[in-house]
């Protein structure tokens, strides 16, 4: 994945898009029975190396989840949470404002920063979660179907936001909305699930520039999938 680009993961349900994404900041380490083989390199280092602390990985590689999940605390404290984790002492109010502006939420909440994060609408909550994730200015932002719980208007806002954010952050996004991948992603990975051997094994079918993948896919599978012949 290239710096400053948006990479999208598409594919049918259960093919392991989210799991693959969550491997990138070791979120799966929290899942009982999870085992990882292979390597994920970040800044030239293997984040699964024995000496690497998964907590540290997650501080550099932020995440936005499928369901908006603001904490049951004020909007301000939601955004400041990550700053406090990182022991940031200076300019917390300024950083909170910058993050909220970055997430295109500032104008809507600037007069009610003390209100609970849960008092916002779904779309606003998701933007609050984005603000929370970018407040510490991580390098990479992972987004796991960030719009699947949102209505079309809120979805459009988040998509605009993603294109703005890629100036600063490298973004990886899982989506099952093909149009969304086409609209926002520079590169797209198509994954599929193989059930022929009894279990479910997800695998990568094709990884290409988004335009090429959608207009001229190399693999037959990809072609069928983007034509909507199966899902």
């Amino acid at each position, binding site marked *: 994945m290239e710096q400053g680009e948006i990479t999208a993961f598409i594919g049918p349900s259960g093919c392991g898009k989210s799991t693959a994404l969550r491997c990138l*900041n070791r*979120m799966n380490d*929290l899942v*009982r029975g999870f085992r990882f083989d292979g390597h994920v390199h970040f800044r030239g280092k293997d984040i699964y190396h024995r000496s690497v602390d998964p*907590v*540290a*990985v*997650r*501080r*550099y590689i*932020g*995440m936005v*989840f499928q*369901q908006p*999940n*603001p*904490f*049951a*605390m004020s909007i301000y404290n939601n955004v400041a*949470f*990550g700053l*406090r*984790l*990182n022991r940031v002492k200076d300019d917390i109010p300024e950083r909170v404002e910058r993050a909220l502006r970055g997430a295109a939420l500032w104008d809507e909440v600037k007069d*009610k920063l*003390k*209100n*609970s*994060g*849960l*008092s*916002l609408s779904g779309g606003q909550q998701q933007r609050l*979660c984005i603000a*929370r*994730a970018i407040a*510490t200015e991580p390098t990479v932002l992972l987004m796991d179907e960030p719009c699947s719980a949102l209505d079309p208007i809120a979805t459009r806002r988040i998509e605009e936001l993603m294109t703005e954010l890629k100036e600063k952050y490298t973004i990886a996004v899982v989506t099952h909305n093909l149009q969304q991948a086409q609209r926002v992603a520079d590169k797209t990975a198509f994954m599929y699930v193989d059930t022929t051997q009894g279990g479910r094994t997800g695998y990568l079918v094709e990884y290409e520039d988004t335009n090429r993948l959608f207009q001229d896919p190399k693999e037959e599978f990809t072609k069928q999938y983007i034509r909507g012949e199966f899902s």
Partner: protein
Amino acid sequence: MAISLEGDVPSDSVASPPSTFDISWDRTFRGLTRFFSWMTIFLVLYILYEIAGKAFPAVQEFGLSFVTGTTWDANRGEFGVFPEIWGTLYSSLLALAIGGFFGISIAIFLTQDFLPPRLELVFKNIVELLAAIPSVVYGLWGIYVVIPAMRPTANWVHEHLGWIPFFKTSLSGPGMLPAALVLSIMVLPTISAVSRDALSSVPHKLKEAAFGLGATRWEAILGVILPTSATGIFGALVLGFGRALGETMALAMLVGNSNQVSLSLFSPANTLAALLANNFPEAGQQEEGVLMYAALILMAITLLVNLVGTAIMNRASSHLSGEVK
């Protein structure tokens, strides 16, 4: 009579309006539940009325001096329950502090993936078994095990740190600390079970959010999981406190039944519930009214604790869910 919709549905439809039996059964059911709900409320009011009625002569005779008085002498007709009120609150607060600390710690330990799920279940059941031990057994255990085990340490502390008000007296047998200690074990299962529910009802997505921001396990627990479940944990503490206030048998056996107001943890004391249990068998007519007055005070305290607790919880939960500014 409801408007019939029958003509409007296609002829092969099997849909039909509820039969008269369905409707009357529905009405009966609603009537029954309403009746039993009201019965419960009526029962509470009736008990209050009876106790207040029996206590009335004593209330008239002693008035507020009953609450502030410090002697209890049936022969001279002098009654005051200030030491008992003090002892009730003091022992319950101590038990709440100890039991609350351990109860919440256990709840955290049992919900935050510190143990494999099967062990979690085993531990949970063991803690809940504590609630199955009869309170008189706790009392006996306190007398024959806890007090003898505590005495050497307690007396050493008294000798060396006796200038601190909490250790001002020596522990000669029953007393505040053993009572509070046993009481804290008795409230522990309540507190840990209710806190456990509160902690495990924190949505998984919030935990993920905390970990996703790079929180360590403790940062996630202290920064997100505990604050999110704070209302429920507070409820657990209120329940535990209520239980401690009313606990009778173990305290009657362990607290020393002595009318004293002392900060000392080693001094014998008394509680309202223990006073009632100890004095009703030989109570004459006047003392009976006086005991009813004491019972009324105990009920007022527990009621107040529950009301204030519920009020705080309601405010906190509406604040958390963002309903109120």
